C-alpha cells in the first residue's frame, strides 16, 4: 500500500525528517510514537502534501503511484485521509456543503456521477450514527463552535463519508475524555475494511488499546529508531523514551 524510502523533508529550511524508511501493507495498522518534535506530524503532513513542507530527498509510492507528484486533493481521491490534530474552523461553510463538495469531487475523479441531494443526505444520516454526531452539528458551519471532542468526532465522521483506504490519525486522542475516545475508536474500527490501513500517531497507550496496532515505530530526531510489535507501545507507556535513546547511543 505505502512505501516510503529515505524520506527527507524540511520546513522553512530546517530539516525535520532525516531519512525515513517505512512500508505499510494492506490492512495493517501502524502506530507512530515519539517525543514532541521528533517529526511525527511532519511525516503525516508530508504524506498529505501540505504546501509548507518541502521534500528534499526520497520517495513515497502509494498503491503503485508516485505520491509526491500528486496534489493534496488528488491524494485524497486516491484514498488518503488525515484526521487533523487541530481541525480547522470554517465559518460560513456548512458541513453539508463541505462534505457534498468533497464526496462529489472524489466521485468525479473516479468517473462517477455526482450524488443527488437526496442520496447524499441519506448517506450523511447513516454515517453520522457511526460516530454519534448530533444532527445539529451537521447543520452548522465546519467545526465552528464545536468542542474539542466534537471536532475529533467530526473528523471520524468525515472519514466515514470519504471511505479512505489509508487513514492517518494525528493525535486524534488528544483532548478526548474516555467516553469520546471510545466513540471515536469504535467508529474507526467499524469503518475499517479488510484492506484499510492506518498510521496512528499518539503519545498514549489508551488509544492503542482500542485500535490494536500490528506494528509500533519509535521516531527520534527525524528517523525511525525502533520498530516492534504492540508490546513496544506498552513498554514505552511504562518506561518512557529515555531507554531507547540510551540504547541507540550505546
Amino acid at each position, binding site marked *: 500500500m505505502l512505501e516510503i524510502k529515505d524520506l527527507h523533508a524540511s520546513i522553512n529550511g530546517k530539516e525535520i525528517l532525516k531519512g525515513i524508511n517505512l512500508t505499510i501493507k494492506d490492512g495493517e495498522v501502524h502506530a507512530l510514537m515519539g517525543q514532541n518534535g521528533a517529526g511525527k506530524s511532519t511525516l503525516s503532513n508530508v504524506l*498529505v*502534501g*501540505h*504546501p509548507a513542507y518541502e521534500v528534499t530527498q526520497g520517495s513515497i509510492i502509494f498503491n503503485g503511484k508516485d505520491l509526491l507528484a500528486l*496534489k*493534496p*486533493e488528488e*491524494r*485524497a*481521491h486516491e484514498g488518503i*485521509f*488525515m484526521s*487533523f490534530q487541530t*481541525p*480547522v*474552523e*470554517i*465559518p*460560513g*461553510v456548512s458541513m453539508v*456543503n*463541505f*462534505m457534498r*463538495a*468533497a*464526496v462529489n*469531487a*472524489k466521485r468525479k*475523479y473516479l468517473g462517477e456521477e455526482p450524488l443527488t441531494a437526496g442520496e447524499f443526505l441519506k448517506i450523511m444520516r447513516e454515517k453520522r450514527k457511526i460516530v454519534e454526531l448530533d444532527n445539529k452539528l451537521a447543520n452548522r*458551519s465546519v467545526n465552528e463552535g464545536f468542542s474539542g471532542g466534537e471536532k475529533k468526532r467530526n473528523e471520524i465522521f*468525515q472519514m466515514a463519508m*470519504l471511505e479512505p483506504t489509508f487513514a492517518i490519525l494525528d493525535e486524534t486522542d488528544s483532548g478526548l475524555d474516555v467516553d469520546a475516545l471510545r466513540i471515536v475508536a469504535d467508529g474507526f474500527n467499524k469503518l475499517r475494511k479488510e484492506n484499510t490501513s492506518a498510521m496512528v500517531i499518539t503519545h498514549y497507550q489508551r488509544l492503542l488499546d482500542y485500535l490494536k496496532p500490528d506494528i509500533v515505530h519509535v521516531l527520534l530526531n527525524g528517523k525511525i529508531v525502533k520498530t516492534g510489535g504492540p508490546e513496544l507501545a506498552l513498554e514505552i507507556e511504562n518506561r518512557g523514551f529515555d531507554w531507547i535513546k540510551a540504547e541507540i547511543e550505546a
Partner: protein
Amino acid sequence: MKSEQQYIELFEQCRQMLSSHSCEVMDSLRDEAFTTFQRLGLPNRKVERYKYTDAQEAFAPNYGLNLNRLDIPVNPYDVFKCDVPNMSTLLYFIVNDAFHSKELPKYQPEEGVIITSLKDAATRYPELVMKYYGQIAKKAETPLSTTPEGQYVDGEFIPMHKNNEPDAITALNTMLTQDGLFIYLPKNTVQDKTIQVINILTSKVDLMVNRRVLMVLEEGAQAKVLFCDHAMDDVNFLTTQVVEVFAAKGSSLELYELEETHVKNKRFSNLYVQQHEESKVTLNSLTLHNGYTRNMTYVGLVGEQAEVNLYGGVIADKKQHVDNHTLVDHQVPKCISNELYKYVLDEEAVGAFAGRILVRQEAQQTESQETNANLCATKTAHMYTQPMLEIYADDVKCNHGATVGQLNEAALFYMRQRGISLEEAKLLLKFAFVGEVIDKVDLEPLRDRLHYLVEKRFRGELNKCTGCKLCK
C-alpha cells in the same frame, strides 16, 4: 477645462428644454441646485468624502443626454420574462430615467398606494411631492447646530462637521433630472407584495442618466422594495441617482438594491433616509457586477427608538471599483443602528468603505454597531477602509471595527485534504464570506436567488450583463 464646466454650460444652454420636459415641482429646485453646483464643482480626491472616488475624472468624458425625452423603443418584458422564482412581485421598469408606464404589473398595489413616474406624480399631486422632494437630502446637509462645531487639540481648532456641506452630485442630479419614480404609502398601509423596480440602461451611444426616486411611507406603513440595476448595451453609461426616503412614525421599510451592470457603467448613487420615531428601515445593497460605483448612504435618525440596519456586499474583480460611503446620524435618544459591509476583491479590483456614525449630544442611549470585513484574494486588489465613530453623548453603547484579510490558508488546505480542489475551496471560502450579508435578507426567495447569483458570479459565469439574471 475642469469637468464641471461642460455641465454648467449644458445647464445654461438647455435650461428651457429641461423645464419643458419636466414639471413645476422638479423645476423649482433647479436654479438653487445650479448655484450650489457652480460653487462646489465636481469633487476630486482632495475632498474628504470623495477621497477614494474621483468624480472629476469620472464625469470628464462627454456623454449624451436625452433631455428632449425621446422615446426609447424597448419592451422590457422581451428581456425580462419572469420574476424572482417563487416570489410574485409588483414589477415596474425604469428605462434610463423614465418610468415605463406602458408595462404595468398584473397585480394592483394595496389601496391608496401610489407607484408611478415622479414627473406624473408631481403634476398630479404637487403639494404631496413638494413637501418631500429635495427636502430629505437638504435636511442631511444642514449644519449641526447643537453639537460643537469643532474642538481644540493642543490649542488648535479642528473643525468637525464640514462634511455636512451639500453634495455636488446631488446638486447636479437636482439640476438635470427630469423624471424617475415615486412611491407613496398612506397611513397604516401594509404593502404585502414586494415592489420590484428594474432599472434598465439602454442606448446606442454613450449616455448620462439622472434618475430620481422619492419614497414616502406615512405613519405605520410597511413596504418591501427591490431595485435591480442593469445595463443592456455595450456603451459607456454614467448614472447619477438620488433616492430620498421618508419613513414616518412606526413605518417599516426593507430596501434591497442589486447592481448587476457592466464594466463600462459608472454609477453615483446618493440615498437619503429620514427616520421618525419607532420606524424601522433595513437597507441591503449588493454590488454583484459593475464598472465604477460610488454609493453614498445618509440615514438621519430624527425620531426616538428608530432602528436602521445597513448591510452591503461587494464582489469585484478585473479593475472594478466600488466605494460605499455611509453616514448614520443619531440625532435623538434611544435609536439603534447596525451596519455590516463585506467585500471580496479579486484581481485588480479596488474597494473603499467609509462609514461614519455620528452620535449627537442629545442622542443618549444610542446603540450602534459597525463592521466592515474585507477579503483581498490577490496581491493586486486594494481595499481602503475607514470606520468612524463620532460620539458627543455620554450614555451610549457603540462599537466599530474593520478587517482586511486574505483567504485562510489553513482552511484551504483542510478542504484540499478532503478532496476539494484549490479553486473550489477558494470559491467556498469567498462564498461563505459574503454569504453573511445575504443571510440578512428577510425575503426567502430573494435570499436563495442571491446566494445562487453570488455563486455564479464567483464561478465567472456573470461576466457581463445578459439581461436580468434575477428573472431568468
